[in-house]
């Protein structure tokens, strides 16, 4: 039963939010959310890659043989990541500096490979594109929320504007790794509460949605 493309898009924002529900793409979520502007930068870059890769893979889904599909996806995704990287470097160098190492790491962002495996190679180009946009928006929004919380609490600013008066000393730990873990955990807890209230069960989480899940059969006992 095919969902309407619009529903597909909305899906990615809330119901199957890649970060908070599927718990994919955790690395950039934690790393790039110390400042709201960096969070948005990462979100947009990842969305761009996701969109391109979903479209490309959906277009090529009948040509790519099953045996080599993972390496093919990887090459395509890596290519798009590099191209997006160039574009960002040329036109938004300060964001490029902020993203640093995490820009090439978008390649191994489970969200992108995961959506390619779970959606793009089974659906039409348009549907794949909508899925990508939805997931991307969900990703970016989540990152924005996390980034905002961490920046406001940790530095007293939002997108660089002073939000909390200077006199109040911010909780700098929020902008540092422990703060990232903490806020992330709290956010997921909040989402759990919302889901529970709606009576919905939590969807497959963590590595389950990862394309390597099939290899993971044994590891699933270990808690994957």
């Amino acid at each position: 039963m095919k969902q309407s493309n619009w529903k597909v898009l909305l899906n990615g924002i809330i119901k199957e939010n890649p970060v908070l529900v599927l718990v994919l793409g955790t690395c950039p979520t934690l790393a790039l959310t110390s400042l709201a502007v960096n969070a948005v930068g990462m979100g947009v870059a990842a969305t761009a890659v996701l969109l391109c890769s979903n479209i490309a893979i959906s277009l090529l889904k009948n040509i790519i043989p099953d045996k080599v599909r993972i390496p093919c996806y990887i090459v395509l995704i890596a290519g798009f990541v590099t191209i997006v990287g160039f574009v960002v470097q040329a036109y938004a160098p300060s964001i490029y500096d902020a993203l640093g190492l995490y820009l090439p790491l978008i390649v191994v962002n489970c969200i992108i490979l995961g959506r390619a495996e779970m959606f793009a190679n089974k659906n039409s180009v348009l549907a794949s594109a909508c899925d990508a946009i939805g997931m991307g928006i969900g990703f970016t929004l989540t990152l924005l929320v996390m980034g905002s919380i961490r920046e406001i609490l940790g530095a007293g600013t939002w997108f660089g504007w002073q939000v909390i008066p200077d006199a109040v000393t911010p909780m700098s730990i929020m902008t540092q790794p422990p703060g990232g873990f903490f806020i992330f955990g709290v956010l997921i807890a909040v989402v759990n509460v919302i889901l529970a209230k709606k009576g919905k069960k939590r969807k497959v989480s963590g590595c389950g949605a990862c394309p390597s899940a099939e290899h993971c059969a044994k590891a699933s006992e270990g808690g994957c």
Partner: protein
Amino acid sequence: MDTMKNLLVILITAILTNNFILNKFLGICPFLGVSKKLDSSVGMSVAVIFVMLMSTAVTWPIQIYLLDPYNLGYLQTVIFILIIAALVQLIETILKKFIPSLHQALGVYLPLITTNCAVLGVTILNITEKYSFGEAMVNSLGAGLGFMLAMVLFSGVRSRAESESIPACFKGMPITLVAASIVAVAFMGFSGVVDGLFK
């Protein structure tokens, strides 16, 4: 003596001060997913160390002797991830054929490592930090060891957390993350260590 000191500093920094999981946020997926039990933590970590070392051994020379001289730096991402994927596949096949017992123990974790940010991360970092080959290998070893340290410590924390009564909404991922944040605070305390070590 100076090289030894330098290498030691890199090693300790990678393990403690710039711990890949708790400081650099690389390798979070397996960290959250596989650290429930001690033996799976150790198994995953060993596999990671192995793949990191091998990947560095292959990607570093390729960057220095192939990509840089021919100005092909932009192919770095594509080539590195392909090498890592290929290496993982190769290692799995070799283990299956020649050391089945090891394959039994580690094999399940290997495919997961391809998408592990930590492995791709360390190979790229070795280049951006302009390390020599020796330094790169030591850095990768340190990264892997730090990964193992965090995983093992954490499996202890998680197995404890299992037996406690936790509010429903925090069960599972959230409490894991909060616990991780506390462990991360502990590791922050290492930031001054390296400077003072060799005074």
